[in-house]
């Protein structure tokens, strides 16, 4: 899928790229149109109270473009601005995009959410928390009208807190090895429950619990992407036509999927124990595999294809 016009963008690390670089590389060249671009200077009215600088996009880029010639709506969080957090303005931009998809059948029926977020921006905590609730509702409503919403998780801030719930509300999730997702981050759990509960300095432990490979093996993500723009483009293209409808049958299947996961893996004390229970022959080796070898292992697993959400 290498695009000859964008060779460097294709191989650029998703993890290290900015939100705008990801969009420029992911979408067909020249196809992106931004809504409320930085020239309109829509910024947080609250950060100044905390003597913090604002950004003219509030760390959320929304618009439309084409991916492999198909029209898509897109939203990308900038993890390097306030940790990509949900706040009054950044949240409302995403809510507006999703509501437009819900209400206007002439708009693209695919929404890509390039998540890169630690969750709610505490300086605007109440507005941010409520924005996440509105986003989740708007995703469900758009899905109810046949819109496919795909989360892409592979940025520096991961997708935690409200962003972790947002990802799991989407029709589909693509994640890379560097992608991390969850609710409470390791540091928060360590601060509240002690280092014996979760040692946030133990990088291997953190990787095995929150990282993209564990999520993909358990079925917490539906596609595994290499950490490049091309990797995410391929993952999205593979998911785009097989999204579940939002209805009772899907949620009943998700209920079974999540109950089954506890039944099979609930007694495990570590990710490696879970991977053993999943029938993986050399679980200690998961970390060392290259992307291709890892993808082969995923193919043989029931949990990974058991993907109602």
């Amino acid at each position, binding site marked *: 899928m290498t695009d000859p016009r964008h060779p460097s963008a294709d191989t650029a690390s998703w993890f290290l790229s900015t939100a705008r670089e990801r969009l420029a590389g992911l979408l067909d060249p020249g196809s992106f149109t931004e809504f409320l671009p930085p020239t309109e200077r829509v910024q947080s009215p609250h950060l100044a109270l905390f003597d913090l600088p604002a950004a003219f996009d509030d760390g959320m880029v929304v618009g439309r473009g084409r991916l492999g010639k198909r029209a898509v709506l897109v939203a990308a969080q900038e993890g390097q601005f306030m940790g990509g957090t949900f706040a009054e303005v950044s949240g409302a931009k995403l809510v507006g995009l999703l509501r437009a998809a819900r209400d206007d059948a002439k708009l693209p029926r695919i929404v890509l959410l390039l998540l890169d977020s630690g969750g709610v921006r505490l300086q605007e905590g*109440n507005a941010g928390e*409520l924005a996440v609730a509105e986003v*989740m509702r708007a995703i469900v409503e758009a899905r109810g009208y046949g819109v496919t919403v795909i989360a892409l998780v592979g940025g520096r801030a991961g997708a935690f807190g409200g962003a972790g719930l947002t990802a*799991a*509300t989407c029709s589909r999730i693509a994640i890379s090895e560097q992608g991390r997702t969850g*609710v409470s981050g390791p540091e928060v759990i360590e601060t509240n*429950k002690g280092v014996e509960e979760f040692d946030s300095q133990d990088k291997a432990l953190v990787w095995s619990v929150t990282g993209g490979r564990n999520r993909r093996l*358990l079925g917490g993500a539906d596609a595994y992407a290499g950490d490049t723009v091309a990797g995410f483009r391929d993952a999205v293209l593979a998911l785009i036509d097989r999204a579940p409808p939002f209805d009772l049958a899907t949620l009943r299947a998700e209920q079974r999927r999540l109950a089954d996961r506890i039944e099979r893996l609930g007694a495990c004390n570590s990710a490696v124990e879970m991977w053993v229970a999943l029938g993986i022959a050399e679980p200690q080796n998961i970390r060392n595999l290259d992307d291709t070898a890892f993808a082969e292992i995923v193919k043989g697993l029931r949990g990974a294809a058991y993907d109602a959400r």
Partner: protein
Amino acid sequence: MTLDEILSSLFPKGHDIDPRSDHLILGTGKRANGGTVEVVGIADGEALGIEGVLPLARRVLDIVASGGKAPILVIVDTQGQLMSRRDEMLGLNEYLAHLAKCLLLASRSGHPTVGLNYGKAAAGAFLATALATDVLVALPDAEPAVMDLPSMARVTKLPEDKLKDLSQTTPVFAPGLAFMSAVGAVAQVWDPAKPLADQLEATLVAVPAGDKRDLLGAERGGRPIAAQIARRVAHQASGDDYV
């Protein structure tokens, strides 16, 4: 008010909700008009983990499957999501989002959903339950929050006193019912001195048809620009087609 007092005042004609060792609330209450209200929730400030989600979600899905239009009341007193390495390892975000989706499905399927916050409500557990309803009400002693002020001081690296001072100028960040009301999250605060049954019936008559929380936040001044920004984005996306 205690949960017992709340349930008695909500359902003078009776209910079948018994205390459970897992602190979940599951059952049915009788309405004055002869109908029923399905009740789910979490009590005693209990943290919500993956095991807590499943019975609640199953119940909501059974209600949807059984048809009818019975309202669902989501009663919440939870300190937040369970902070546990094990639950995170198993994908707590998927479990919490699943519960929210089940409630949103119920609402789309014709069951009006009402959240009732009577104690704590925080973070991811708040999103999975009370914030995933059509309308959220609270009792005056409720303490909804994203995070408590001392933790917030730690994360933002600002002194707690400074945060306290700032909370006098803006409702946008500080914990508490007044602030959550100002941003539009909590629609009404019920009066514990009056029968809750009547207040529930009044709330059910006026369940909003869509998500109006951003308009409420603008009206109350706690979230001044969110509604307008969402509209501007939708307008630019759709051009003149967006009304």
